[in-house]
C-alpha cells in the first residue's frame, strides 16, 4: 500500500519538475540512457566492478552534462523495463537520480521526502536481505556521503520556517519521520553493527581477515556492499556528530579506523578528505591543536601533490573547496598554537600566501583579530544543524543559524580565554630565565594577574587525551621555581623509524613483484 502511494506521489513530483522545465519529459528515455542502464545493469549482474566504476564515475557524468544539465534524469518507471524491473537496480537508479537532482536543481520538499523513502528502501534491502552485488568503493562512499548531505540539507531547509507555504507545513507535519535524526543515526549505526566491520578491522590486525589489504573488496566473489557501507558509515557518523556539535562522540565513532595509516578511507579521495577535515575540526574544538595541525598538514600535502589527477572528477570542485577550508582551519590552529615546525614547507608556503597577512593580525588579539577568527571559522566550519523538529506554532521563526551561532560563540569564547597567551609566548621566546616581577612589568600587569596568565598558558597548552594522558601542545614551555620563570624550548621529535619501516615494506613489495616476473 505504502509503495503504491509512493509511486503515485512520485509521478506528481515529476510533473512539478516538468513545469519547471518545459523541455523535460520524465518518460522520455533517450537511446544513450537506455544503453547506459542496460549496460550498467549487466555489469552489476556480472559483478564487473571495473566497468561499473567506469560507467558510474564517467558515463553518468558525461550523460548528465550532455542531456541533463538542467533537468532530472528520466523517471525510474520509464527505465525499469529495460532492467527486468529489478528492484535493487531501480533503488540504485533512483538514488543516483536524486543525487543528480540535488546537485543540479533545487529539490522540492516532496522530492526530499521521496529521496528519504528511497534511502530507507535501499538500506532495508542491504541490511535485511543478503545482496550479492559488488559495487565500487567510490559509489558506496557517495551513498553514505550523500545520505548525510541530504540530511544536513533537510535540516537547514526545515529550519527556515518563515517562508514556508501552508502546503509545505502540512507535508512537514505529515512526514515527520522523514530525515528524522534518530532514523539517520540508526541507519548508519545499523550498517556499522550489521557489517561487523569493527570486528573485521580488529581481526585484520591479527592477520585473521583481509579487508584493508584488499581495499575492502572481496576477491572470492562475496559482496562488499554491507561491509564497505559499514566502514564508511563510521566516517558518516563522525560527520553527523560534528554537525551536531558532539565532537567527542564523533571521534569515538571513528576510533576503529586507524588514521595514522592508509586504509579503505584513503581509497576514495572524498572519503579521505571528509575523514580528515572532520577529524581535524573535532580536535580543534577539543583544543588538541597539535593533532589537528598534523592531520591537516598531511592531508593538504596530499591534495597538493595529487590534485592534478582529480581535475576531471566530478568531485574536483568539492576537493578544492575543502582544501581551502582546511587551510583556514590550519591558520586558526597555528594562530592558537604556533607549531609551524609541524607543517611541511609546501603547505606552509601555500598557507602564508593565503593567510600570512591575516595570521599576523590574528596574533594581536584586538577586535580586528577576533573578527578574523570569526571570519575564518565561519568560512571553514561544517554546516551545523539543529536536529529537532520545528515548532509549528505561530509566529514561525527561522532557526537555521542557531546551531552555527552557538558553535561560533563558544569557539570565540575559547579564543578570548587565550588572548593573553601570545604575549607571554613572545617574551618566553627571548628569555631563558626571567623573574615574575620583571615579566609582569613588561606585560604591564600585576604579579597575581601574571600568575593567572601563566596558569592559563599551562592549562591551555596541555590537553588531556581520551585516556586521561596529558599531551603538551606547547611550542615554548616553562616552569616556575619560587618566583623565577625557567624557559624550556620544545624541540619536536622527528620520527625516522616509521619512514624506514615503510620503505622496508615498499622495497619488499618491489622485490616480490620482480620475483614474479618470468623471463623467457
Amino acid at each position, binding site marked *: 500500500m505504502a509503495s503504491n502511494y509512493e509511486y503515485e506521489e512520485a509521478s506528481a513530483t515529476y510533473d512539478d519538475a516538468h513545469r519547471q522545465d518545459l523541455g523535460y519529459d520524465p518518460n522520455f528515455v533517450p537511446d544513450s540512457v537506455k544503453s547506459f542502464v542496460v549496460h550498467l545493469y549487466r555489469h552489476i549482474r556480472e559483478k564487473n566492478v571495473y566497468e561499473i566504476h567506469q560507467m558510474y564515475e564517467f558515463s553518468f557524468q558525461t550523460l548528465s552534462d550532455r542531456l541533463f544539465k538542467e533537468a532530472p534524469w528520466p523517471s525510474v518507471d520509464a527505465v525499469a523495463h529495460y532492467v527486468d524491473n529489478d528492484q535493487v537496480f531501480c533503488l540504485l537508479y533512483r538514488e543516483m537520480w536524486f543525487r543528480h537532482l540535488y546537485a543540479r536543481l533545487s529539490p522540492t520538499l516532496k522530492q526530499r521526502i521521496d529521496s528519504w523513502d528511497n534511502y530507507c528502501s535501499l538500506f532495508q534491502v542491504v541490511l535485511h536481505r543478503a545482496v550479492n552485488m559488488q559495487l565500487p568503493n567510490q559509489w558506496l562512499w557517495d551513498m553514505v556521503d550523500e545520505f548525510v548531505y541530504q540530511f544536513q540539507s533537510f535540516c537547514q531547509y526545515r529550519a527556515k520556517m518563515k517562508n514556508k507555504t501552508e502546503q509545505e507545513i502540512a507535508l512537514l507535519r505529515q512526514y515527520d519521520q522523514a530525515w528524522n*535524526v*534518530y532514523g539517520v*543515526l*540508526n541507519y548508519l*549505526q545499523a550498517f556499522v553493527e550489521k557489517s561487523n566491520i569493527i570486528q573485521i578491522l580488529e581481526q585484520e*590486525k591479527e592477520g585473521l581477515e583481509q579487508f584493508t589489504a584488499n581495499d575492502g573488496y572481496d576477491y572470492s566473489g562475496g559482496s562488499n556492499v554491507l561491509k564497505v557501507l559499514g566502514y564508511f558509515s563510521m566516517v558518516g557518523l563522525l560527520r553527523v556528530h560534528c554537525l*551536531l*556539535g*558532539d*565532537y*567527542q*562522540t564523533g571521534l*569515538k565513532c571513528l576510533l576503529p579506523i586507524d588514521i595514522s595509516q592508509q586504509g579503505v578511507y584513503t581509497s576514495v579521495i572524498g572519503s579521505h578528505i571528509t575523514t580528515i577535515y572532520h577529524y581535524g575540526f573535532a580536535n580543534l*574544538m*577539543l*583544543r588538541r591543536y597539535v593533532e589537528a595541525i598534523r592531520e591537516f598538514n598531511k592531508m593538504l600535502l596530499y591534495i597538493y601533490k595529487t590534485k592534478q589527477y582529480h581535475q576531471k572528477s566530478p568531485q574536483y570542485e568539492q576537493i578544492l573547496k575543502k582544501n581551502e577550508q582546511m587551510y583556514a582551519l590550519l591558520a586558526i590552529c597555528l594562530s592558537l598554537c604556533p607549531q609551524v615546525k609541524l607543517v611541511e614547507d609546501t603547505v606552509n608556503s601555500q598557507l602564508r600566501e593565503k593567510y600570512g597577512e591575516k595570521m599576523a593580525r590574528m596574533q594581536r588579539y584586538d577586535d580586528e583579530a577576533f573578527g578574523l577568527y570569526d571570519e575564518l571559522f565561519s568560512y571553514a566550519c561544517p554546516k551545523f544543524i539543529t*536536529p*529537532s523538529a520545528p515548532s509549528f506554532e505561530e509566529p514561525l521563526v527561522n532557526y537555521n543559524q*542557531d546551531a552555527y*551561532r*552557538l*558553535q561560533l*560563540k*563558544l569557539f570565540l569564547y*575559547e579564543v578570548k*580565554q587565550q588572548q593573553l597567551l601570545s604575549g607571554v609566548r613572545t617574551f618566553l621566546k627571548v628569555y631563558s630565565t626571567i623573574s615574575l616581577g620583571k615579566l609582569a612589568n613588561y606585560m604591564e600587569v600585576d604579579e*597575581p594577574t601574571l*600568575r*593567572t*596568565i*601563566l*596558569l*592559563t598558558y*599551562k*592549562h*591551555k597548552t*596541555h*590537553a*588531556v587525551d581520551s585516556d*586521561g594522558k*596529558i599531551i*603538551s601542545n606547547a611550542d615554548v*614551555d616553562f*616552569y*616556575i*621555581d*619560587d*618566583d623565577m620563570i*625557567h624557559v*624550556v624550548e620544545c624541540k619536536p*621529535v*622527528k*620520527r625516522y*623509524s*616509521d619512514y624506514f*619501516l615503510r620503505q*622496508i*615494506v615498499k622495497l*619488499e613489495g618491489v622485490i616480490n613483484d620482480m620475483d614474479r616476473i618470468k623471463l623467457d
Partner: protein
Amino acid sequence: MRRERETPKQQQQQVSYTVEHLVAVNPYNPDILPDLENYVNEQVSSQTYSLDANLCLLRLYQFEPERMSNQIVARILVKALMAMPAPDFSLCLFLIPERVQMEEQFKTLIVLSHYLETGRFRQFWDEAAKSRHIVEAVPGFEQAIQSYAIHVLSLTYEKIQRPVLAEAINIEGLSLDKFLEYQAANSGWILEKGHGRGQLIVLPQNEFNHPELKKSDADSVPLEHITRIFPILG
C-alpha cells in the same frame, strides 16, 4: 545465572555496568532517556562520573528539547566542571541550546568555568561561595576543584610559595598545615623554609615542571610499527 551478593557496593557496580552497557548498545534510542537521567542523579550521590552517558543524555535532549530537564543539565555541568582539566564542560555546552545557557544558574556555571579555564582561582572560590546552592548539591565538588588546581599548579611550579598555593586551593591556616602534612606523607610534597618570606612547597616532580624528566621517545619505535615488517623478517 549466578546470584549477586547484595552488598551495596556491588549493587552499584552492577547498575553502572548496566547503564554504560545501555548507552553502548543504544546510543541513539530515546527510550533510555529516563535511565540516563536517573544515572546522572546516581553519579551525583555515589560520586562517580560517566561523560559518555551524560553526553548521550544531552544528545537526546538536543533531539527532543521538550524533554529537557534543566535541573539534570545543571548537575551534568557541575560534574563536568569537576572533571577539569578535561574539556568536558565545553563538550557539554556545545550540545546545550543557547537560550538554555542564558538562564541564571547556567550563566553562573559558565562564569565558574571561565575562572577555572583562566587560572583565576581567587575569583572562582569567591563566586562559588555565592552560589552554594548550585555546587553544594553535588558532593565532592570542592575536592575535585582542588585537585584540578593542584594539577595545573604542578604543571607550572617546581616550587611554590605557600600563600599562592593557599589561594588556589582555598585552604588556609591550620587546615592548610594539615593538608600539607598529608600531601608530604602521601604524595611526595616537600615543605621548605623559604629565605625569610615564609614557606616554600616543592610540588611532586613531573616532566612539565622538571623538563629533564621528559622521556625522549625519539628513539623508541611502537610495537605496531614493527609488526608490519614481521612477515619480511620471518
